[in-house]
Every structure is written in C-alpha cells, then in structure tokens.
C-alpha cells in the first residue's frame, strides 16, 4: 500500500473504496419498491378527476405506498372495480389475470368483499371492496397474506378508489420474502379499516381463504420489464 500518495492516486483509491456494487438481494428490494411506486403513480394518473395520495400514516397501514383515486361520483354504469382498474394497463393486467374469488366477511359494521386474487412467484394480489353498514367512508387498513406454509407475505403496495358513494375498492400487491415462492391456499387477514384520510382506524377481523394457481410473472409494462431485466 502506498502511504506517500499523489492526489490522483488518492482520488483513484477513494473511487475504488466507494465503488460498492448493489447486492442482488438489496437490488431486488429496491426494484420492487420502485416498481410499486410506478404502478401506483400510473394508476393515479389514469384516474379520472382529482387524484391525491394518502397521507403517510394511512399509507403505512397498507404498506409502502398507496395511491388513492378519488373519483367523486360514480359514472353511469361503472362498477367500483371498473373504476378501480380504470385504464391503467398494469392494473388491467392484474385484473384480467386474477381469479374470481367472490367471498365476503362482515365485522365491526364493515363488510369486506374479496373480489379477485392472483399470484405469481413473487407476489400475491388481492382486489377487495370495503363497505360500511353506516354508510361511513371507509377503506382498507391493515392486512396480510399468509401462504400454505405459514409464510407471511407482507403488503407492499395498494391502489384504491377512495370512498365512492359508500364503497371503496382497493388492489393490493403483497410481496413474498426474497427467494420464497408463495404457495396456496392463501389466507388473507384484514385486521382494520380506516377512513380514507387514515385519521380513524377501526379494528376488526375479516379472514378469507382462497387458492389461485401461480401465473407467469406479472410484467405487463415497459417499466416492469425494465426492472425485471436489470435484476440480477
């Protein structure tokens, strides 16, 4: 090692010292988060009317990021799920490939309806609606998916409609731990609902058991494809 070094030697040594590559598991974490953010932002932009994001406390309830598509009133004939999926290609892709589950569970005055679900080797996707018996505004709060082997698949990203005439719909993607392929049947546990702005959280217990076949990886758009290709 050269102790009496020139300026350029030192600069080269600093560059070498700081040139730390991103480990594959770290890159995977970052890829997933950025991919999810792009999906949410795409959904937000594709919505009609005014769009905004959940304030951070509420976003944390459902995972890393949640995009809310506040739509005002329901357009003639459009279902809440049609409104949810809208024209966002990534969400349309998940919706089209998801399996119809059609289960409902009611607790604490709220009914949660699990409309569809899908899974690939890295994610489990659930598409749900929340309705309050009182007509109060409500959306998804805390949730998790557990696979057949007891692996907890943490919620990653959700995109939702916000309250639309007493019902809200949400699409959540749960990320399997690195290196683990989710295996059905799956249990979806929802343990709270919140108001759209997230200031009030109501605990409860809504449980669903469902099974879906693993599909090919979801790589519906260029953004997703780019991230997937770059991942080691």
């Amino acid at each position, binding site marked *: 090692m050269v102790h009496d070094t020139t300026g350029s030697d030192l600069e080269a040594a600093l560059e070498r010292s700081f040139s*730390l590559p*991103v480990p594959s598991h770290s890159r995977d974490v*970052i890829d997933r988060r950025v991919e999810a*953010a*792009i999906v949410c932002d795409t959904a937000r932009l594709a919505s009609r*009317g005014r769009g905004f994001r959940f304030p951070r406390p509420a976003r944390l309830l459902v995972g*890393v990021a949640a995009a809310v598509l506040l739509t005002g009133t329901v357009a003639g004939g459009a279902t809440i799920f049609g409104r949810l999926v809208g024209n966002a290609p990534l969400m349309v892709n998940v919706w089209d490939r998801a399996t119809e589950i059609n289960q409902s569970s009611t607790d604490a005055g709220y009914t949660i309806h699990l409309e569809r679900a899908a899974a690939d080797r890295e994610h489990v996707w659930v598409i749900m609606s929340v309705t309050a018996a009182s007509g109060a505004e409500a959306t998804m709060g805390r949730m998790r998916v557990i696979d057949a082997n007891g692996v907890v698949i943490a919620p990653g990203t959700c995109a939702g409609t916000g309250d639309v005439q007493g019902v809200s719909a949400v699409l959540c993607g749960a990320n399997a731990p690195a290196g683990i392929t989710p295996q059905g049947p799956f249990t979806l546990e929802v343990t709270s609902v919140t108001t759209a702005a997230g200031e009030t959280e109501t605990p409860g217990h809504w449980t669903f058991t469902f099974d879906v076949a693993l599909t090919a990886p979801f790589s519906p758009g260029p953004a997703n494809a780019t991230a997937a290709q770059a991942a080691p």
Partner: protein
Amino acid sequence: MELTQRLAEPLDLADTPLDDRLAARARNDPEAFAPLYERHVERVYRYLRARGANEDDAAELAALTFERALSNIDRYRPGGSGFGPWLLRIARNAFIDAGRRQSHRSLDLDETAGLTAPGQSPEDMAIEAEERRWIRSLVARLPEVQRDALALRFAGDLSSREIAPVIGKSEAATKKLLTRSLATLKEAMRNGA
C-alpha cells in the same frame, strides 16, 4: 393510456439531456421513470453506503429516494444542475432524516473488504480489500461535512459544480472543501494513520 395531467405547454426537448427528457416524460407517464431509475440506482446506493448506511439501510433509503423522486417529479426543473444532483439531494435528505430517527450502525469496515472485481488474483484481492478498509477508516475520521462532500464526489460521481447546490455551498467553497478533505486524508496517509 388515458392521462389526466398534461403539461400546459409542449416542451421542446430535442436538445436536452436524456435525464431531463425522461424526467419530463415521467410527469405524465410514470413508466418513463424506470430508465431514470436504472441509470441512477447504483450511484444512489453507493452514496448511501459511503455515508455509512449498512446494506439494509442503504436499500431502504435508496428505495425511499426513488419513491420521493417519482412523487415529486413535477418539481424537478430540467436545465438546472441536473437530475443526478437532484436525486442525490433527495438521498442525502433521506439519510439525514433517518439519522435523526435512529442512529445508523457504523459501517462495518470488514463488510466491504471482500468486494472485489472478478478475475482478481487472491493477492490483489487481499491488497484491495486492505486498501478499502484503510481508506474508509481514514474517511470515517473526517468531519461530517467533509465525509459528505467526498461521498458525493467519489460515490455519487458529482463534480464540484454539481455538489455545490446539494450541500448548499458555492462552487468555490465546495472546491475548497474537497481540496481540504483530500489534503487531510493525504496527510493522514503520510502519517500512516
């Protein structure tokens, strides 16, 4: 794709840098953010590691940096100091915010010792690992502001002109800061610290 937010006026982006063109597109088409991410993820991660974040923290903060960048892409002004410096400023703020919430584990210097290029001989690998460890231990003794400037320069790959707005100093002051930091390091090396 139906878009509800469109730029008020079309932008002529033919002669603008690629980053600026992608950033402008990403305002209306978030998928255009993906190549920006690909182009900058390594330098953001390197910068965070150089600041002392461990692998997990650096991954978390890098992800947070890009999430914040995407959600604030409307605030990025093409033609300014550039997308890279803007992104590293977000990363720097994220690192500082995280530091306020929790004290970061100091970088385990041995953690980086085994990082070497493929094809190196065992002897070269050992020498390089030792050098990494030694340099980083010297940098770790510098004042915070100097460590930050060196991380932006050598991990973030920014010039003095680009570092200046990130750390809130003039270009001249930034050059002096870097020169002083390098001189201190050189002196430490001479002394065999």
